């Protein structure tokens, strides 16, 4: 008798828990908010754009374990699907983490250029794509990904199919993506170098955005003054590890950004950087005037000599 009662209570409790979970799921799906998260994956890039149960992941850092923990934090726990992945270019610090993601999450399609790499990591990634029967879409100008709320991610570069697939510099053909959410725009640049920035500018592509992911972790061979003049972002996000061996982000780049009156957010300083979009506007929860970062006004007045910065 006593045991029966225990079993009944057990079942009631379980049913209640399931009810609560279902309620949460329905609530969450009813009011989807678009979120753009620059994940702190150490020295590497990974950006998650998530709206309700639809996700777009741009690159995956180099460490699968770390990336999976981050995804577990920002993707609702019942959702085991990432609809689309964009692989900007086949460098270790952009694709290393994706292998584990393909193993554990359902992925519908992956966007990548024809660019090849002879690294074992790239081979493994291609194996996993084949094994899991993921649809491969060639990333080039004109490919778009639409979100339910009307937000659109659009590939701006490369313009054509990559022909130099075994070429030395993988960064040359790094995929550039623009995300438009209502009035706000994001530009994701992978490891896009200055030479290509100029080509993109010459083509007259509209790259004016509010939020710029700084190319190549703040390398000095990217993010030129000319590029910043046109893009004119209000915030710049640098995805970089603390004390990395490359010396990223470069001081010159930081100065260029300050001269353009851009707020700088760095994953090595603030961790994951989250932008929440609602009513056609995107805002970040991070406050800019932290001790190591001057406020916008201060930055303007003292921009030429940013000694207080670092």
């Amino acid at each position: 008798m006593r045991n029966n009662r225990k079993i009944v209570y057990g079942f009631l409790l379980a049913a209640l828990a399931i009810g609560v979970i279902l309620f949460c799921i329905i609530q969450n799906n009813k009011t989807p908010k678009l979120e753009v998260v620059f994940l702190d994956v150490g020295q590497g890039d990974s950006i998650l754009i998530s709206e309700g149960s639809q996700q777009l992941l741009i690159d995956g850092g180099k460490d699968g374990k770390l990336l999976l923990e981050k995804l577990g934090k920002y993707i609702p726990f019942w959702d085991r699907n990432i609809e689309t992945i964009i692989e900007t270019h086949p460098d270790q610090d952009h694709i290393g983490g994706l292998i584990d993601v393909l193993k554990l999450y359902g992925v519908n399609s992956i966007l990548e250029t024809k660019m090849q790499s002879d690294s074992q990591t790239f081979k493994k990634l291609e194996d996993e794509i084949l094994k899991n029967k993921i649809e491969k879409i060639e990333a080039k100008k004109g490919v778009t990904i639409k979100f339910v709320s009307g937000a659109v991610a659009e590939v701006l570069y490369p313009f054509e199919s990559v022909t130099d697939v075994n070429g030395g510099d993988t960064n040359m053909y790094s995929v550039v993506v623009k995300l438009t959410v209502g009035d706000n725009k994001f530009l994701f640049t992978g490891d896009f170098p200055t030479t290509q920035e100029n080509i993109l500018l010459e083509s007259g592509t509209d790259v004016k955005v509010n939020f710029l992911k700084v190319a190549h972790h703040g390398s000095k061979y990217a993010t030129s003054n000319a590029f910043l003049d046109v893009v004119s972002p209000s915030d710049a996000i640098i995805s970089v590890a603390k004390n990395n061996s490359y010396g990223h982000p470069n001081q010159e780049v930081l100065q260029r950004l300050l001269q353009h009156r851009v707020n700088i957010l760095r994953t090595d300083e603030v961790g994951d950087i989250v932008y929440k979009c609602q009513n056609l506007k995107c805002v970040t929860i991070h406050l800019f005037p932290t001790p190591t970062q001057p406020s916008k006004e201060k930055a303007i007045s003292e921009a030429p000599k940013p000694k207080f910065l670092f």
Partner: protein
Amino acid sequence: MSKSRVFLFILLSFLIGVFVRSFWQIGQNYFFLLSVVALILLFTFLPTYRQAGKNKFATLVAFILFGFIFGFWLTNGEIAKTNDLIFLGKNFEENAVVQKVSQTTMGQNLIVELRSESASLADKKISVLLSVPQYPEYQYGDLLEISCKAMAIENRDESFDYRMYMAKEGVLYQCDKGKAKKIGENQGNWIFAKILSARAIFENKIIKVIPAPYSALASGLLFGGSGGLSKEIQKDFSVTGMTHIVAVSGYNVTIVAEYLILLGIALGLWRKQAIWFALVGIVLFVVMAGLPASAVRAGVMSGILLWAMKNGRLASSENAIIFAAAIMLALNPLLLRWDVGFQLSFLATLGIVVTSSFWEKSFIKKNRALGISEVITLSLSAQIFVLPIIAWNFHIASLISLLANIFILPIIPLSMLLVFLVCIFGFIFSPLSFIFAWLAFGLLFYEIKLIHVLAQFPWASVSIERVDVWWIVLYYCMLAVVIYLLKKMDDNIIPE
């Protein structure tokens, strides 16, 4: 003096012999002298052993000395072997079979066993540590063609004796810039390979439906191992003294067993049946952990504990535990100093046994209704016994550990059950697997979050730079005295 007492003393002296040689070197002359004294004692007094009194005592001393000498000698031999690096600097160009793979931040660490045809190596079992990139991935039983230069294993930082850690597993060499090429597979033990692949399939069922890091905790609970958790979370676990829930040690296995018994009783089994239930559970647990030697040892320790419970002799099963420890050390004396798992298994089970009658009388009987008092006392006695070991090995003493254990241990078995159901239904009916995954997620989320919150407390743990071995000896001597006094009090109470 009873026979079992004599036996216990000889075993203890053996353990002390192993302990002493593990930490100190005694000059050969002293060692020789000691042996001679023992022999003289033995030959003088053994013929007159039957006569009571001094002769008997002297014979006993001789045997105890022999126990000590044997332990010392055995350990000395093993330590000498680890320093005898005859292949140092040799270029290995051999076939080798992968024995163990562990993931590191840089790539994979492989332990490979050479399969050599050349005469100089053929009669020896040589295991080598090989660091290779993350991809391609290797697995147990893969046949590799390796070419590398054998070097001694290096300690990467001072706080951890990596060289001896590997040496106790029989691995004396490493190949840093080694090359490996896979040329075959399934060269390992067939049964072991099957167990490992079954474990991998089970684990896959978990990680497919539960997001990280909760899935890593889930598989750690079920199969042991915290390798799937990130450094930050592992640190939280160690600060709150909760690492044991994801490690297969006697501590963990015993607590699992204790819960299985409670579960069995709750399901309506008799106590003795429930203990059988728990024994079966332990065997399954050890097999699912992939049958590593550490898990087998842990299983043996807590198996003895359960057996003693079943026969109602829990309070007097120290002998069995010390006997098991002595056998394990006779097989590999290096475990005593260099295997944390062994230390934790041995001391935690011993702690539970020697304090059980005290708790039973003073605490549990009075507070039976609480139900969780058993959990608290079990956890407390195990904590007291392993405290210096954790400080010694991990340079940390968790002050918040008891609190964390009280809040988290009671739901561990339920989490394990749910994760187990996730696995099972992953095979039979996957929608149900999802439902269980949600329920399990709730508990796992609570566990990781609570551990994280508790780890943030300013005094959650104190870090201990270096523990002198004498402090540990002193601690356990004091503990022994306290236990002895408690026992004496017990014995005095009984006749009343």
